[in-house]
Every structure is written in C-alpha cells, then in structure tokens.
C-alpha cells in the first residue's frame, strides 16, 4: 500500500528520457480508431524497437543458414551468432555458465521441458508439488498432467486479499513428500512481486528444487539467477522486446545433466544407431531440431537494447508509472484496484463498478487504448478474489505519464457512458 499512497507527480524519473526511447519503437506512432495508440498490454506481449527489427533484417539478409551442421561460411556465422545470443542471455540473467541457458519457444515450453525432463524422472506416486494460487495456467497445467500421470499431489500456497502469498502457509506445506516447487516471480494478473529468494532458500534447506516462472519479471527488473539461487528460471522473448517463438530456460547445470531430454530429434544427439542413441551435452540435449535461429539472435539484440537503457532505470520508470496510475485510480469513485500488494511491478488490474471488463476493453479500444480484459490465464486468482475477470493495464518502460492520463480519461469516458 505504501508504494501506492506516496504522492508522486513528477512526469518522469530523472535522466529517463521516455520520448527518446519511444522514438525507437515504430509501432508506437500508429493511430487506432483515429487516436494515438496507447499500448498498455505489455504483459501479454511487448513491442519491438527498431534496433531489434534491424538485427533480424541483418541476420536474414546476410547471415542465415542452418546451425551446427555444415562447414560453409553462412552456417558458421549463423552458428556463432546464435551462440553469441546465448552468451548475451547468460549475462542478462547472470547465469554461471552459458550451457545453463537453453533456448525454448517460450515460458510455456520451458516449464513443459522441466515437467518432462525433471518431473517425469524424479517425481513419483504420492510425491507433492507446491504451486501458488497466483500461477499462470502454464505453471499449473503441466504439473497437473504430471500429477495425474504419476499419482502425485499438488499443494497450493494461498494468498491474502491484497494478492500476496501467505508465506507461513507456504512453509507449512512442506513435508517429506515435497519434491518440487513452482512459483512465479511477478504475477501477470495482479503485479505482485513474490519473495522468491526467501522461498527458494526455505525449499533448498529441505532439499527441494524450485522453478521460477519469470515471464513477468525478466522484462521489468534485474534478474540474477545466482543471487536468487533458483534451480530453473523460465521467461519469454516476446515480452522482452524480442520476437515471438523464442524463450529461455535457465537450469542449474548439475540438474540439467541428470534430466531426460524433452524432445527427440536432430542436434540433441551425439550418435544414433537403432540399438542406442547417445544424447548430446547440455544445452544441446534440450534443443532438438532446427531452433528459431533468427528469433534467438533477435532476443540477443533485445537484451542488449534493454541493458543499454539499464534494467534498474527501467524498473524505476515503470514504478513511477504504476504509482502515478494507482494514485489516479484510487482517487476515482467507482474504480477499484485488484491486487494491492506492497511490492508490485508494472501491472494494474482494476474493476469499474457496474461495468463488465469486456465492455471496458472495447470502449477503451475506441479511444486507441489497448488493455487486456479477462481472467489473464489465471483463473484460480480470479476465483480467490471473487472477480470473474478484470481489466489490466500493464506498463513498459516506453510508456509515458501522458499515456497514464489517457487511460484515466478513457476510464472516465466509460463511466460516463454507463451512468
């Protein structure tokens, strides 16, 4: 609450030139319904700066071939650019070794890899997996599938009305059958930042590995997987100014080495006979088939771009946007913020009395404002907070205070129409 109550009226944080940043994003000049686009659906997918678009074009026009396969010039350059992208991602999350960074197709794919590669090997009948009420469906459904297959059990960490995990309850869920923890770093539906470092330490003290769904954290704050001491960290490129179809699974090398491959095929093997196949070393063991090479290189360029601005500067600007928007909404009669955790990032879910979120979404769209409405792939949170759906504005570092003003004016228009 305190974060929200602080009065903050400055139009931007010092030394953060949002107009200069916006000029890097060609899509932000679009008009929608004759109004300037106000893009506040960044939690669903972020936009791409010209620098990343240019990198994709350069790769496709001068560097493309399949990787790891041939000795010719293009294959060598594509391979080295692809591996260079892996190193960029390694540094972005401060992984200890580059082989701990696996290219996947996104967060969902990363989590499924862990479920198949780790879960199916190490979790059995009667074992327990701890998840939280806040989780996105992509960190629920794979574990339900595993639980069903193995006869394992899912235990769920509850939340309070503000949308914060009840850490005492989390600790009480552990017992000798606890084999795995899956927790999101930042909630896509409410914006809650979870105390994952403490949660990981607690689990590790009991020998339990932890997967962190970082889809909504990696775009908004500095992530240091060694400092967090997590075992797995999953995120998506398309929420990080990169292309769709690419994501990352960070995994601790010692765990990855003992895991089953998830998909079988080319590139993930050292040798194949019909009697026996020897799997490749990590990370290649988990990268069967031709990967999205262009997308991986594009993601490398995206994290370069973000690092140049600085994740701390990004976090500070987004927090300023969130505070300003929250203050404005709190001052509006008939509008309520859903999710009032003390520590929040970049996400503002809200409800307007007497107006269904879908109507809000359609009417804001008429003003050129893009928000998400619905259950945000997090139905358990919605059920717990007794809302069928919410409207969600989610910010990126290229959003401006003027865009917050446009959102607030848009909500006023909705209220006027419905009175």
């Amino acid at each position, binding site marked *: 609450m305190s974060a929200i109550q602080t009065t903050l009226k400055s139009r931007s944080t010092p030394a953060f030139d949002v107009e200069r940043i916006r000029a890097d994003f060609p899509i932000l000049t679009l008009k929608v319904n004759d109004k300037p686009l106000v893009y506040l659906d960044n939690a669903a997918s972020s936009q791409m700066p010209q620098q990343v678009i240019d990198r994709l074009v350069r790769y496709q026009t001068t560097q493309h071939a399949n990787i790891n396969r041939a000795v010719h010039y293009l294959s060598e350059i594509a391979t080295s650019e692809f591996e260079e992208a892996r190193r960029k991602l390694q540094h972005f999350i401060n992984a200890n070794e580059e082989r701990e960074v696996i290219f996947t197709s996104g967060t969902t794919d990363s989590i499924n890899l862990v479920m198949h590669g780790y879960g199916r090997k190490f979790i059995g009948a009667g074992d327990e997996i701890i998840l939280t009420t806040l989780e996105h469906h992509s960190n629920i459904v794979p574990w339900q599938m595993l639980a069903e297959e193995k006869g394992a059990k899912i235990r769920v960490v509850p939340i309070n009305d503000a949308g914060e995990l009840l850490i005492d309850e989390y600790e009480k869920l552990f017992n000798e059958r606890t084999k795995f923890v899956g927790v999101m770093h930042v909630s896509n539906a409410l914006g809650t930042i979870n105390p994952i470092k403490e949660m990981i330490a607690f689990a590790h003290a009991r020998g339990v590995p932890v997967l962190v769904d970082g889809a909504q954290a990696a775009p908004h704050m500095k992530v240091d997987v060694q400092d967090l001491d997590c075992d797995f960290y999953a995120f998506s490129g398309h929420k990080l100014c990169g292309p769709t179809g690419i994501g990352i699974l960070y995994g601790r090398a010692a765990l990855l080495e003992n895991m089953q491959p998830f998909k079988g095929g080319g590139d993930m093997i050292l040798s194949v006979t019909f009697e026996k196949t020897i799997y490749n070393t990590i990370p290649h063991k988990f990268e069967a088939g031709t990967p999205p090479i262009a997308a991986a290189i594009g993601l490398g360029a995206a994290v370069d771009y973000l690092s140049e601005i600085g994740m701390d500067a990004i976090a500070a600007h987004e927090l300023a946007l969130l505070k300003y928007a929250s203050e404005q909404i709190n001052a509006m009669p008939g509008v309520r913020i859903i999710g009032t955790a003390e520590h929040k990032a970049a996400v503002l879910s809200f409800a307007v009395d007497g107006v269904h979120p879908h109507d809000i979404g*359609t009417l804001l769209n008429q003003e050129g404002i893009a928000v998400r409405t619905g259950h945000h792939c997090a139905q358990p949170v919605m059920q717990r907070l007794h809302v*069928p759906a919410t409207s969600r504005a989610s910010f990126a570092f290229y959003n401006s205070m003027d865009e917050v003003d446009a959102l607030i004016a848009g909500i006023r*228009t909705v209220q006027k129409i419905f009175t």
Partner: protein
Amino acid sequence: MANYKSLYQEVILDHNKKPRNYGTIESPSHHAVGHNPLCGDHISVDVVLGDERINNIAFQGESCAICKASASMMTTAIKGKTRAEAETLIQEFLAMATGKLSHDACPNIGRLAVFAGVSDLPTRVKCAILPWHTLSGAFNAVATTSTESEDDPMHAPIGDA
C-alpha cells in the same frame, strides 16, 4: 459518445441497466444454460412453449453489457412468437452478428439491428450470440451450451497473457 460505429447505443445501455424478463420461471418447458468459457459469461434461459406460441421466457446471468442487452432484447422479441418464427429469428440474428448477412437482409430483425456492429469486433461476437445459442439449445433440449462448440463459426479466443 458520438462514435457512429459505437455498439454502446442508448437501447443497449438501457437493456443492460434494466434487463427485461430477467429471472427464472418456476416450471419451464425448455431450459438451457449458456457459457462462454473464455470470458466467464454465463446465462440461463427458461422458456414456456405453449401449443402455439412462446408464452413466457426469462433469462438470468453474469455477463457484459452486450450479452445482457442481447439476451434482454431477445426475450422481448421472442415472447408471443411461434417456435418456427423464433427459430428463423435465431438464424437471422446469428447470421447478422457473425457478418454473414447485413441487417437489411434480415426481414425479421427489427430493433435487433443495433447489434450489427459486433460483426466488426470478432472478440465481442460471442457476447452477442451467447443468449441466442442458449435459446437454441433450450429448444433442442441441450441442457448446457457453449460458445466453444465445434460448429461455432466465430471461434475467436479472447487472448493470452
């Protein structure tokens, strides 16, 4: 608001605020529950079908304004019609809302033409057609219907995040 394409016209807002025939009927001859799993909207429709005509109809549920107004206006349009007339109107409404027919090609559509604008909003078509699917389900004795059934021409997910 003076947006000529706006769906949110006076009639729709009025039916949303003061839905007609809202509630349930003690012993309906036909009943169905409709559900849009993507947005959580759900409504129930109760019908009393006499020998000749639809003597009574009511609906109830949680939904957006488009769905609620569509349901409310559906009940006022359907009450007193024969089943055959009602089935024709259902077909016309579904064709208009999904953009297959323009509203002037629907002779019985009348005031329901205010919903023609949804055909430009693929994610909102389902909201408008849910009550009509549900009524059709009630007539055909399908106890629950969903906008996600395979024959739904407008399978337009709300999106992912």
